[in-house]
């Protein structure tokens, strides 16, 4: 399986003209199938027809979901930690009827669920039924979240049983898919609570294949890879020995593209030492083999060091730095499982490594906080992600299902059922960017070239799909419509020139 993964990348790479500047190298993209035939007219938007009936769902849901709770829950809207332990729970136990009476969820569904695809004879009454169906689901999901947050688990369980009969993850409505997976995650949480215990079991292989599928059907992962690669390339300019440390390497999908550029740069290829952290030695070794093969084909001097530990558990002596070596640390965060362990230890490791560059790609969502905070944050976040997939792929696309079930559902499950990384009992930062700044790291604004990279990636997807780049605070963010989803930033231990 993994061999195949890499071969896809190789094939694409080989077609690319070597280029020093990187500005014009859309390297390594397997072009999504629906893009190979771009719509001839911008108004035609054929990819949308009958695929997804939702637009701007995330914004509307956020409006609905956030407002009832905003008085009660001190959220993390500014990215600053709030005292969640002082959460006044009795304010939240508003009677369910209060939510039911709100017009808000109705509005979400007026714009979203009505009219799902096929035209039918009785479409009028059917649309009404769908509409009511959607409305009931959203209301029930919110009530259920409140019940869980107030530890009323029997009631939550009853509502979850209802939801399991109502929401389908194969629906044409993206909102219904989101509800189905949130229901699954919350049911898993209720079970954990009843067992009095939770600890994730992670099927790494299936996650990797879903991750690969995500990389193929949406721009998010490519955005992360290419903006980070650009920042690393710039920071390692003219360095002869480089040490790249990937805190969560998975299949190392992003590195062939960087190697390719490094191998053809004007000042000659550097010696690359790479340290890959991950959970399984067997998979790390396989990744190392693939990367070594690739480097050899480029004629690049390369070593790979696998460490089957989480960054927060690594003894810094296991990652020795060598004299004259420029260190780059890369970290693409996700919410699938706790890939790095205690954040304070990870920070300590970074301080000791004193990297020339740290590239950080974060999900624009607070993983910490109370259950209700996380529920609201993640509902907002994943509604946007699901909508974006629904925009580009038909509802019965198997790849879309693989990503939603194998990847996004796992993240939702981890955030809600396991409780996010914080649930492991290990301390997590609310905002890594803020924490890095406090620790004396200096932000390196993402360069114009990084922006150009991000733009190149986006150009591979029709503008009608709604992906948007945001630039500001020296970061680059990729989002869908108005919702920011992934944020890339770069840091260094020293002030830049």
């Amino acid at each position: 399986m993994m061999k195949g993964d890499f071969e896809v990348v190789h094939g694409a790479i080989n077609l690319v003209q070597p280029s020093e500047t990187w500005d014009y190298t859309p390297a390594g993209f397997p072009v999504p199938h629906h893009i190979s035939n771009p719509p001839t007219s911008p108004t035609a938007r054929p990819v949308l027809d009958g695929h997804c009936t939702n637009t701007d769902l995330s914004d509307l849901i956020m409006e609905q979901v956030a407002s009832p709770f905003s008085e009660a829950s001190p959220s993390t809207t500014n990215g600053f930690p709030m005292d969640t332990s002082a959460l006044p729970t009795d304010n939240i136990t508003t009677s369910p009827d209060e939510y039911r009476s709100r017009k808000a969820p109705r509005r979400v569904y007026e714009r979203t669920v009505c009219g799902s695809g096929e035209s039918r004879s009785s479409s009028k009454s059917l649309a009404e039924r769908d509409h009511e169906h959607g409305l009931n689901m959203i209301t029930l999901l919110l009530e259920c979240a409140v019940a869980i947050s107030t530890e009323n688990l029997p009631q939550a369980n009853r509502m979850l049983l209802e939801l399991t009969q109502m929401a389908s993850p194969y629906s044409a409505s993206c909102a219904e898919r989101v509800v189905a997976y949130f229901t699954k995650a919350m049911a898993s949480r209720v079970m954990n609570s009843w067992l009095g215990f939770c600890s994730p079991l992670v099927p790494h292989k299936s996650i990797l294949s879903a991750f690969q599928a995500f990389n193929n059907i949406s721009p998010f992962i490519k955005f992360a890879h290419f903006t980070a690669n650009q920042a690393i390339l710039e920071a390692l300019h003219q360095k002869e020995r480089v040490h790249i440390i990937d805190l969560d390497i998975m299949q190392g999908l992003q590195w062939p593209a960087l190697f390719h550029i490094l191998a053809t740069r004007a000042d000659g290829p550097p010696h690359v030492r790479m340290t890959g952290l991950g959970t399984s030695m067997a998979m790390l070794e396989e990744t190392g083999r693939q990367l070594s093969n690739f480097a050899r084909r480029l004629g690049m001097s390369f070593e790979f060091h696998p460490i089957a530990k989480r960054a927060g558990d690594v003894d810094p002596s296991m990652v020795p730095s060598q004299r004259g070596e420029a260190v780059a640390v890369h970290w693409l965060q996700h919410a699938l499982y706790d890939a790095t362990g205690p954040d304070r230890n990870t920070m300590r490791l970074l301080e000791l490594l004193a990297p020339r560059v740290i590239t950080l790609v974060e999900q624009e969502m607070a993983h910490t906080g109370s259950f209700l905070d996380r529920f609201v944050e993640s509902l907002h976040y994943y509604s946007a992600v699901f909508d974006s997939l629904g925009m580009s792929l038909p509802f019965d696309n198997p790849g879309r299902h693989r990503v939603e079930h194998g990847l996004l559902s796992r993240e939702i499950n981890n955030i809600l059922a396991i409780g996010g990384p914080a649930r492991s009992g290990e301390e997590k930062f609310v905002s890594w960017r803020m924490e890095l700044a406090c620790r004396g790291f200096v932000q390196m604004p993402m360069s114009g070239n990084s922006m150009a990279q991000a733009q190149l990636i986006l150009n591979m997807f029709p503008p009608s799909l709604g992906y948007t780049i945001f630039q500001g605070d020296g970061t680059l963010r990729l989002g869908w419509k108005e919702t920011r989803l992934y944020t890339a930033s770069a840091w260094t231990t020293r002030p830049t020139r």
Partner: protein
Amino acid sequence: MDTLFRLVSLQSSDQQSSFKSSRTSSSSRSSKANHHLFHQPFQNREEEKYREECGNNYHVCVDEDFSSSSSSKHLQPHPSTAATPTPSTAATTTTASTAHVLFELADFSFPPDLNIDFASSSSAAAGGGGGGWAAQLLLECARAVAARDSQRVQQLMWMLNELASPYGDTEQKVASYFLQALFARLTSAGPRTLLTLAAASDRTCSFDSTRRTALRFQELSPWSSFGHVAANGAILESFLDAAGGGGSPQPQRLHILDLSNTFCTQWPTLLEALATRSSDDTPHLSITTVVSSASPSAAVQRVMKEIGQRMEKFARLMGVPFKFNVIHHAGDLSELDLDRLDLREGGGALLAVNCVNALHSVSPAGSRRDLFINALRRLQPLIVTVVEEESDLQAASGGDGGGEEGEEGFLKVFRESLRFFSAYFDSLEESFPRTSNERLALERAAGRAVVDLVACPAAESAERRETAAGWSLRMRAAGFAPAAFSEDVADDVRALLRRYREGWSMRSAGEADDPGGAAPGIFLAWKDQPVVWASAWKP
């Protein structure tokens, strides 16, 4: 790379200890914080939140024995099991402080005595016999439930909860639906769970969704159409025989008492056959279909009304004089007053009774099943067709099965449910596309049946299937004699099966290695497992 799943949180001993400490009592928690490298004031708060979230103070109602037995028994993991770190000190002894906690901390590694192959996700391919990881874990879990080994139950349910998904592969689905049922059983919430599920499913049910599901099921799988073709063939032949011998100038009248759960999808082909095969005068056809459910819902009534209208329209199109009645019956089918139905239309009409998955919906309590079959016999029907799913889900074999079932009975029903529904899910998996809402509806219905079987008292159950041999005994006892299917009918069934993917086959009941042996009729088999039985009976 043989082990697909890895215990992330148990990869290193560091993690192990931090995990454990986050669950133990408050005193040990603070002591951990003392030698924590970066002790901060809010460390405790984090853990407090974790504990609070973990919901240790969630009360569940289980019987006293169950919760108290947890303190005595611990699993003994083998000290050196590859890839499963063994937490030797996992057994806590804080019995005093855990009075309100259902389970104590078990060791959360894979039970070393379980040799589970997670890599073979398609283990059901060997006939859906349920030999995959889901069946192994579930069976272990059911055994632990029966043995009241609460630590092992907790350990296995945790694993199942982590691995299961109603939207994943067959193994994950089976795990998910059976886990739901076990959860309902352990929280003594079986009947309540079933009621909630059924009510929610009824609320979302519409004519369109019902029709789409039934038609798609017929289109992609012979599971339901097999019985339809066999039963229609038998009904038609017996009617033509009887009508042909009569020699009456009047067109014959056929009345079908339809006890089935397949929403009249059986009848269009019969109407067609009547229209084309009867020589002169097309007979009058009346169908009285009985919709029986524990609690009748408005949605189902709407659906049946629309079905009736469409049936009438179709009959007009075919030129068959037709009458359609729907009887909505609340409660057990055995309580239906058959004499009140005007099945003879004032005399003269020939009566056929069509039972598709109807007999197993009669409660196994007392002798209701025998009484009901006797009542059918008193109707003096021309023919009775019986189509049943082949599975032995009686708690006590041979007996009336309605009594209080013991642990033995629970285990037997659990094992057999697992076998049967694994095969069902496997056949759905291979017949339907991955993202089919129709398949999801069928799976959810099966999930409700599993809750009924695993978590509800047998006496109230509507899902206790019996084997062909078992039903045959009951039919014979009531004075029915088997009517063999003709070669024509068998040919029709074979032709039907050719329309579907590989894996389906027909076999006559005599060939099947069935302990009863003496069952008449034919089986539909999926990967060599008999799954549906069709038979015809005459008084």
